[in-house]
């Protein structure tokens, strides 16, 4: 295929592919927590409000990705605090942070003097712009995620599974909960380069959600979700290359279509098994 011969010739495609594969690691590992703990909405709030930090960084001539990282962590802590303190107004407040973050970002970008940045590449990503610096940053973020999960595996599991029980056992639930949200924040920044901050939520949840159809342990789910994420990035990138489609959007479409097929297939399979059991019971 055209893509693979081009891959050998063009360094920018190689960087794009390596970046996509690196992002898949974070999205598989942390995405599994997002799916089992059902915090997709929180993750959405974190990823969208990141635009605020990127806009401010851009206005002051700093690195937008650095701004994104700071904004993502701040937003994760803020959203975590909202969720722990004002549970009743949780969704309104997170929705507010979501929109206010984006509004701040748009204002700062609009008022940045000189050449106006391509807003679309922040919102929808531009995987072809990944350079060696960004790759090293992604390696660093993957290491932070993997080491944190390795050291806190049981604690993250306990906090995701049953917060109340973990608290009774003397586990500092608030600390681990906020740490987990910070890992979500790091993953969001990792993924922004690949698919942009609007589409992040899809890559954060879809591979893990598909994995949960087939495997039933946290470790296996992380592994399968990572492999799926890598496949989606590779396939999406390859499909988008020929007709010159936006890579981020193509990757998301591949993931979304796979998810829907997987959901139908597993639901049909479950029904079949149940019908068979029912028939056997009737005999």
């Amino acid at each position: 295929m055209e893509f693979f011969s081009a891959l050998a010739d063009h360094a920018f495609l190689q960087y794009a592919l390596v970046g996509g594969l690196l992002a898949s690691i974070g999205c598989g590992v942390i995405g599994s927590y997002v799916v089992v703990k059902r915090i997709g909405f929180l993750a959405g709030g974190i990823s969208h409000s990141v635009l605020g930090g990127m806009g401010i960084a851009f206005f002051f001539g700093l690195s937008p990705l650095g701004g994104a990282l700071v904004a993502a962590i701040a937003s994760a802590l803020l959203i975590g605090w909202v969720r722990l303190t004002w549970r009743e107004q949780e969704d309104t407040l997170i929705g507010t942070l979501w929109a206010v973050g984006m509004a701040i970002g748009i204002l700062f970008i609009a008022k940045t003097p000189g050449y106006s940045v391509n807003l679309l590449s922040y919102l929808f990503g531009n995987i072809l712009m990944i350079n060696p610096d960004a790759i090293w940053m992604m390696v660093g973020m993957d290491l932070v995620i993997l080491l944190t999960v390795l050291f806190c595996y049981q604690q993250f599991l306990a906090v995701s599974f049953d917060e109340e029980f973990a608290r009774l056992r003397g586990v500092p639930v608030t600390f681990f909960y906020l740490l987990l949200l910070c890992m979500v924040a790091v993953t969001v920044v990792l993924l922004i380069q690949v698919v942009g901050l609007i589409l992040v939520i899809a890559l954060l949840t879809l591979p893990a959600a598909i994995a949960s159809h087939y495997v039933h342990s946290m470790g296996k789910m992380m592994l399968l979700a990572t492999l799926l994420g890598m496949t989606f990035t590779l396939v999406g990138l390859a499909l988008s290359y020929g007709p010159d489609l936006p890579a981020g959007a193509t990757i998301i479409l591949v993931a979304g279509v796979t998810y829907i097929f997987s959901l139908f297939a597993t639901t049909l399979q479950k029904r079949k098994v149940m019908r068979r059991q029912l028939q056997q019971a009737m005999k």
Partner: protein
Amino acid sequence: MSSVVSVNDVTFSYSGPKVLDRVSLEIQEREFLGLVGPNAGGKSTLLKMMLGLLKPLAGEVRVLGRRPEQSCRQVGYVPQYPLFNREFPISVEQTVLMGRLGTAGLFGGYSGRDRAIARQAMIETETHELAGRQLCTLSGGQLQRVLMARALACEPQILMLDEPTANIDMRVETEIFDLLKKLNSRMTIIVVSHDVGFISGYVGRVACLNQTLVCHPTAAIDGDTIRGLYEADVKMVEHHHH
């Protein structure tokens, strides 16, 4: 015999009418206490206060001579409606091991000793054969036993259960209370239930809670006490009782 739980003049409300009104209760070591009363009578609220999950508006709760949030690690808790997602990808063994959390350091995994204790708890609740099964494949009765194993893995001095048999059939209910009776030889047991008739065959004392609290030795429960407690619900309760 010393008092392991002491509730002193406790009042509580969830931003509305009083749920508990000046409730006092002393629970002795190795006691098997049934906490009964109508729905919304404050049973689970009182239990959550003994666990330190809720704080009284007035009055004081002491467990094992300390504040509940300090002593909660000596307490095994079996919640009524488990808060977790039933589809959570976790095995029975991993669930039971959670009872060992907080015994080692802040980070890291479980020790061999933790695994041995969890194993023992699974044998005691007859869930060891389910160890590798996923939680989502269990029946209601099996899940209840697994949650009991998780509580026993805490090596508790006091076991607190909130409606442990709410959603399971009578046969399993009897098995679970037989197990509690056996466990009572080494720990204090406090069980919340709405079914006075059933538990009176097992518990040593019944505390009847409907905003205020009245205690009865099991033998003294009769139609009048139940009538006084449930008021309008008398017929249904008497049906249970016979």
